[in-house]
């Protein structure tokens, strides 16, 4: 920057009032060879320095046509859905008549499923809070800029994602069945600290460590490890929601979907 004069801002003042103009000219004499279009010098290089071609296209029409199509498609799909299925409306709210099963909205049913297996504070508050914090921490754990824009990062990432899906699905179904038919609380019910807190934390923690050890076989990057854990999170949400939504009947006991009591589906 040393080649440039010390004054960085060069203002082109085109003011109608002649007095002002004279004053301005005393400070910045007008030079006919200059354009006076430059408003500011900034640090850094022009946007394309050290870059290859960006392979860009005009937003109009390429992006906008896709946005319009997405809007139309979504609206048509919703109109169709609204014609074939009505939003539910049950009897007037009555605090004296308990719904059985009383289910939360479907997107909270994964938490309601967790609730059956551990202390409510752990299932309903602590785990969701930790999950949200962990999600927010992802960019600060994986700080490499490698393989941006590539699904699953690599073939290895794909393999880890598939493996994590199988691992999480099988184990969760196993755990749900175990807690229904053998029941942790039938084995250890006192004190509450064990079935409510220590055993669930040990199971979740232990299975996470085993998942990590197994993922390590691929010699993964940080991102590929995260792919494994994020996949476990997504699959857990999915399996727990399905279990709670379609397989929980009276008293939230395991039931086959076609044997659910009327009104067990919350929509």
């Amino acid at each position, binding site marked *: 920057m040393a080649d440039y004069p010390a004054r960085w801002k060069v203002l082109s003042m085109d003011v109608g009032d002649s007095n002002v103009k004279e004053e301005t000219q005393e400070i910045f004499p007008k030079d006919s060879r200059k354009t006076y279009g430059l408003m500011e010098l900034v640090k850094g290089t022009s946007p*394309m*320095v*050290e870059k*290859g071609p*960006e392979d*860009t*296209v*005009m*937003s*109009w*029409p*390429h*992006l*906008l046509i*896709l*946005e319009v199509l*997405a809007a139309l*498609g*979504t609206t048509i799909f*919703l*109109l169709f*859905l609204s*014609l074939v299925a009505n939003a539910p*409306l049950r*009897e*007037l*709210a*009555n*605090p004296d*008549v*308990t719904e059985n099963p009383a*289910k*939360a*909205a479907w*997107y*909270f049913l994964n938490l*309601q499923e967790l609730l059956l297996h551990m*202390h*409510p*504070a752990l299932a*309903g*508050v*602590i785990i969701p809070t930790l999950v*949200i914090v962990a999600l*927010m921490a*992802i*960019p*600060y754990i*994986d700080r*490499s*800029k*490698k*393989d*941006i*824009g*590539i*699904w699953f990062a690599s073939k290895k990432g794909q393999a880890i994602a598939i493996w994590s899906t199988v691992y999480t699905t099988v184990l969760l179904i196993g755990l749900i069945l175990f807690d229904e038919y053998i029941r942790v609380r039938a084995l250890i019910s006192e004190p509450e600290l064990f079935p409510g807190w220590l055993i669930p934390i040990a199971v979740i923690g232990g299975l996470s460590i085993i998942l990590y050890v197994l993922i390590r076989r691929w010699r993964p990057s940080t991102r590929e490890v995260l792919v494994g854990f994020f996949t476990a999170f*997504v699959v857990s*949400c999915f399996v727990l929601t399905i279990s709670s939504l379609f397989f929980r009947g009276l008293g939230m006991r395991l039931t086959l979907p076609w044997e659910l009591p009327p009104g067990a589906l*919350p929509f």
Partner: protein
Amino acid sequence: MANDRSLTELITQSRVWKSIFRQGYPTSEENRTKVIVNSWFLHIHPVKVKAHTLKIKYTWGMGVITMVLFLLLVGTGAWLMFFYVPSVERAYTDIQNLETGVTFGMLMRNLHRWAAHLMVITVFLHMCRVFYTGGYKHPREFNWIIGVILWVLTLLLSFTGYLLPWDQLAYWAITVSTNIIGEAPLIGELLRLILLGANEPGPEALIRFYTLHIAILPLVMTALLGIHFWRIRKDGGLSSPLEGTQHGRGGQ
């Protein structure tokens, strides 16, 4: 006027038209640039976008579809407000009346309900897409955080709307959910009391959920959506594989 001018030309060359649309139809590169820059509605877009980010298989359009759903929800939601009073005496009968006595009432309620459910799904799929394609990486770390907050806000919006029909489904879902919140260590009971305004779901809870649902949460959501989109631009558009191989920042 002369006969050789078509009606279209008559309109598009009028002073009124030109005062609204400051460039000709975007057939040339120049006009395609101007149409984006000149329009308040379109200037949220960059003039040019990376071709890779337009591939359906890259984004599945989940972000755009989520935004479309949000707009549909604001529209249908505002319409529903004309016919709904958030009081224990009226809420349920208002919904019944909406379904049977109001033109397009059932349709609008259906649209609002299904759009809300769908948005919960698409916003989650959008988050999965961004994660699996590494879209959270530098310089987009903070926008990822905003995105996570937007996901939570979507759940809260859906949750607060769930109580409004004041039927058995709503009442017991809210009872179950607020009981869970009440279990939080230390602040649980306080949080539950603030949310319900009483010990049990009742008129106090209904008006609080309503206010959260139609005013506070949508305002927060709109503000964060603004920041979310603004930062997409500031961080160089959507992520794409071209970035990983180069040192510079994507500039748009």
